[in-house]
């Protein structure tokens, strides 16, 4: 059977096109981990992959430890704890959280934000990405705002339709207030008064019942 010339040409062009597209879609190559680190975290990464969790975060955490010249045992411990937080965060943000949301939620859990808050944020935020709101909540808690109060107010903002710009503005203002010597919780209450009037929705009941649950849970 003789293949026509145009068929061969078309086949070659198709192969070239597919190869070019595949090369284009590949992520940039990350440097390999130290063999000892790699061996230590490999079982953790494999378990996370089997559970369909984003393993890139675990590898990045290991690389962070190497950049900071942490011992392998410490890196392994940090990666294991992160894997547990990722699993919890993924469960709390169901259904279909993005990797950025899971990463942000894992950081929030580390800062002491309870998983019930994350669930309430998902319910309140509906289709909005929670990466920024969760990040701002984490930062508020790390600045010293009590986690229960920060949780309720952030969920309230989401229920009222706050966008990422509102959350970033709130964080900026609280930061400036704290630097100027104001108490973080007072600053939060004060600055919310400047944001709420600009939101499209009216206040809702009790931030999806968060006030009755958030304070009762032990922070992770």
């Amino acid at each position, binding site marked *: 059977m003789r293949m*026509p010339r145009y068929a061969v040409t078309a086949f070659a062009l198709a192969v070239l096109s597919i190869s070019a597209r595949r090369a284009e879609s590949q992520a940039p190559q990350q440097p390999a981990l130290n063999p000892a680190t790699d061996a230590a975290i490999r079982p953790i990464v494999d378990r996370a992959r089997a559970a369909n969790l984003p393993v890139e975060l675990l590898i990045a955490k290991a690389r962070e430890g190497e950049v*900071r010249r942490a011992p392998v045992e410490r890196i392994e411990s*940090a990666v294991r704890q992160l894997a547990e937080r990722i699993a919890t965060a993924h469960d709390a943000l169901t259904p279909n959280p993005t990797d950025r949301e899971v990463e942000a939620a894992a950081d929030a859990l580390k800062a002491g934000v309870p998983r019930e808050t994350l669930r309430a944020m998902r319910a309140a935020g509906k289709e909005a990405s929670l990466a920024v709101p969760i990040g701002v909540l984490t930062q508020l808690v790390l600045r010293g705002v009590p986690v229960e109060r920060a949780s309720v107010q952030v969920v309230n903002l989401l229920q009222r339709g706050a966008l990422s710009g509102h959350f970033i503005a709130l964080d900026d203002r609280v930061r400036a207030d704290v630097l100027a010597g104001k108490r973080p919780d007072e600053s939060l209450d004060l600055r919310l008064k400047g944001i709420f009037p600009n939101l499209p929705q009216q206040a809702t009941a009790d931030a999806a019942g968060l006030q009755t649950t958030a304070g009762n849970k032990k922070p992770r």
Partner: protein
Amino acid sequence: MPEERDELIGHIVDELKALPVVPADATARVLARVDAARRAGPSTRSDDDDVIFFPAATDEMQAQSPLARPMPAAAGTRRRFVISVPAAIGYALAATLAGFLIRGALPKQEATVALLGDSVVRAGATVRPVADAAANREAQEAPVAVQFVLDAARASSVALVGDFNSWDGAATPLARDSASGSWSAVVKVAPGRHVYAFLVDGKTWTLDPRAPKAKDSDYGTEQSVIIVGLK
């Protein structure tokens, strides 16, 4: 069985009649052929059985179609519309290639937060299927360009390491501004809270004096914090 066959033949004839380009004598030719087959008996097999043909193909259609390759027609036989195997493979590959090329020529969709109307992201909007909601969230997480600056006039190299570049010390080198002595880089970062630091001369962990700091309990050192998003 004969009834079923007759019903099937009737169905085929109806289909042929419904076609707008069926030649006027096509129906009669099919019926004549069926009759001939019946007379010849069930064991008789026509050579045409292995050939895909289109009895409705008119001269006009064959002239217009670049795929048409009429077989040499013997006197009194119908012309057939046959594609050889290599040609079929060739055309299939060409069609695949055309698909790739057309897809590549289309502009890539670069979603930004600004493209999402308030009604999409605000609470109280119509609840969409989960897959749509996830796609919306992904679109809102389109990276934003952020400039990082460090004043380090005596440094010979400065690199940025953070969770947005997987802490890769080689991924984001900063460029030195000769006039000011400052080092800077513009990096696309996904919205959210990020932690980072500068590596000066490849080894010195340096915090960003313009950014808030946070203690890291995993490794015990401080890091700079930035919250990225459209204001």
